[in-house]
């Protein structure tokens, strides 16, 4: 190793990122070469000063302020409540990403660094049906993440809480068996090939609580707090739509695959 090569290796040497042999070669050169040794010392000095500078800056910070500010926000951080919306009038926001999936969340809340997010929330509040397509994507890997913020009030909300978070085998269906007063809400997640079966399955359960149904072949559904998430859809070219059916008090998520439709298998 000469000076030129050592200079190229000095960062990785200093950071311990060289393999054993290169490490040894670089070390042998640096211990014999004044110039390279100075370079290495400069790295050490920089690191020391940098750490001191930042330590000094955060020295007086009261760390308890962090949790004190975070804690009150946590109740609302997952499954956001939309102001003025009731359980019966489920609303959604939506986001899509070819690779990352689709996130439907309430009013644009629940954004997440793991997914590209487009906010359909404000338009969804107009009570219209939304439909959009996932452009391309690869079979099986096509990932759809739907999150419905289920907003409830009073006993309905309590029922929803009671029933949320149940996942049958971690794969297929999640049903909320709460017992809300009055007309209970229901939710059906439907995949195109299984629409009829799902329609049947989506009829109210004995307990009359919110009901979420999805077939394994459609994708993975899980619930978390007041959210229903369809995390993946096993079709390469899927489109997703959602609408409310007030007559039956049902909100339908419709996931359709263009190729299946085109091939007549639907």
């Amino acid at each position: 190793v000469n000076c030129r090569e050592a200079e190229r290796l000095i960062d990785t040497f200093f950071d311990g990122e060289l393999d054993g042999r290169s490490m040894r070669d670089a070390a042998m050169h640096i211990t014999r070469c004044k110039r390279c040794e100075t370079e290495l010392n400069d790295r050490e000095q920089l690191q020391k000063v940098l750490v001191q500078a930042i330590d000094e800056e955060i020295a007086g910070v009261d760390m308890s302020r962090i949790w004190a500010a975070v804690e009150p926000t946590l109740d609302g951080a997952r499954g956001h409540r939309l102001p003025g919306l009731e359980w019966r009038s489920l609303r959604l926001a939506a986001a899509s990403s070819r690779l990352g999936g689709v996130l439907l969340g309430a009013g644009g809340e629940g954004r997440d660094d793991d997914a590209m997010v487009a906010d359909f929330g404000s338009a969804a509040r107009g009570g219209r049906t939304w439909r959009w397509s996932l452009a391309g994507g690869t079979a099986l890997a096509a990932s759809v993440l739907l999150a419905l913020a289920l907003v409830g009030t009073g006993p309905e909300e309590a029922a929803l809480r009671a029933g949320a978070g149940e996942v049958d085998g971690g794969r297929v269906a999640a049903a909320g068996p709460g017992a809300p007063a009055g007309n209970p809400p229901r939710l059906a997640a439907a995949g195109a090939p299984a629409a009829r079966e799902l329609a049947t399955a989506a009829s109210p359960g004995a307990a009359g609580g919110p009901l979420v149904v999805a077939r394994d072949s459609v994708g993975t559904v899980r619930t978390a707090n007041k959210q229903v998430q369809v995390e993946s859809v096993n079709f390469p070219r899927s489109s997703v739509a959602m609408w409310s059916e007030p007559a039956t008090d049902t909100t339908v998520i419709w996931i359709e695959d263009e190729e299946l439709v085109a091939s007549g298998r639907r």
Partner: protein
Amino acid sequence: VSVERTEWDLVRLAGSGDKEAFRELVERYQRRVLAVVMGMLHDREAALEVTQETFIKAFRSIGRFKGDASFYTWIYRIAVNLAIDHQRREWRRPVAETTRNSGNDSAPEDILDRIGDENPRGDPFEATKDAELRERVRKAIDELTPDHKAVILLRELEGLSYEEISRVMQCSKGTVMSRLHYARKKLQARLKEFT
């Protein structure tokens, strides 16, 4: 007998809405996250705000955290992205609005006062020189782009490997290495001017 829960246990519990578990995670990582964010922003209030926002965002998304990366690289990723966003917002603001309120952009006189308080028995000349050096480093960091800042802080403060930094920054290891090299050279040049 108290059994210390593993990070993954805490992540899973927090994912199911356990606030106490999440609190433990916050307490484990708050200082480290704050250090990186402070290094990027050099503004105490802004850094606290971004750190808080980081944990709030993390709680929102923790149910979807799959554990294929370590929790700390995941949390750093959120923090660094938020810090970069914050900085970009600040840059877009008119100059009059961006006056900092942290008290960290100290005038030289303030530094001298501070050092006098901190090192009553030390060599005042050396202490002052050290303080000025640190101040100079902070200013030199400010001259780096957010991406260069993030890379050097994650490496020097947190000791993340190139691989981990590449996951946080979502770039290749080669990019990490070149950013790190550039940032070090730039900062070292500043230090040399001073010494």
